[in-house]
């Protein structure tokens, strides 16, 4: 009886999270890399350690590469753990890019870790992470 009441209460207070979870980010990463292993390193992800405004956080991501037809960076993908959805952006390059280096501005809904995955022309995947403390979260304000 007590257990049943406890279960009933549990059902009432169950909340559906409004943000993605680290598990969903893992799934989004897997969708991009497939079953290939992802090694830490080579990717350089630059984000401010503390951001006052989550609506616009400067991000720069780069990979050292000769960017030749035989050895270049194919793509860099950026993911977050706690935004409403894990995907942030995918950049695609070819040897004509010269450098695999891109800057943009992103939104962060929470203090969290951002992950960048680099895809090289030899089929290998590399990653880097950066932790950002966000004081004013994006996505929550009323219009």
């Amino acid at each position, binding site marked *: 009886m007590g257990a049943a009441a406890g279960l009933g209460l549990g059902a009432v207070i169950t909340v559906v999270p409004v943000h993605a979870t680290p598990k969903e980010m893992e799934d989004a990463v897997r969708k991009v890399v497939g079953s290939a292993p992802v090694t830490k390193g080579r990717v350089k992800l630059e984000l401010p350690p503390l951001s006052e405004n989550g609506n616009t956080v400067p991000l720069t991501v780069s990979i050292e590469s000769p960017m030749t037809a035989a050895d270049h960076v194919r793509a860099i993908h950026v993911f977050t753990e706690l935004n409403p959805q894990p995907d942030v952006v995918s*950049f*695609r390059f070819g040897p*004509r890019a010269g450098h695999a280096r891109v800057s*943009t501005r992103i939104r962060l809904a929470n203090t969290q870790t951002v992950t960048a995955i680099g895809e090289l022309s030899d089929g290998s995947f590399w990653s880097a992470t950066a932790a950002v403390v966000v004081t004013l979260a994006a996505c929550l304000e009323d219009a």
Partner: protein
Amino acid sequence: MANALVNVPARARRGEIIEVKTLISHPMETGYRRTQLGARIPRDIIRLFVCTYNGTEVFRAELHPAIAANPFVVFSTVATESGTLAFQWTGDNGFSATESATITVE
């Protein structure tokens, strides 16, 4: 029509790696915000940005709602020949904008 700004060096040496800066005015409405009455504001974002150099694609970015309003993208390309860099942004609700810049390579 959307306002787009692109910054490409006017001239470059052959083989030099040039930096290209692009900015376009767009709200990048995430689809997760609500009005004060609780109605969900539908998503309205730019989904794709492509840069072509004399017709050859050199860079592309697939954007999601986590890109800040007025998407700003800085990337690089190799100055191979004189010509035109064309930029195209496409998105929700049939959004499409183009911009171009010319470069002289010597």
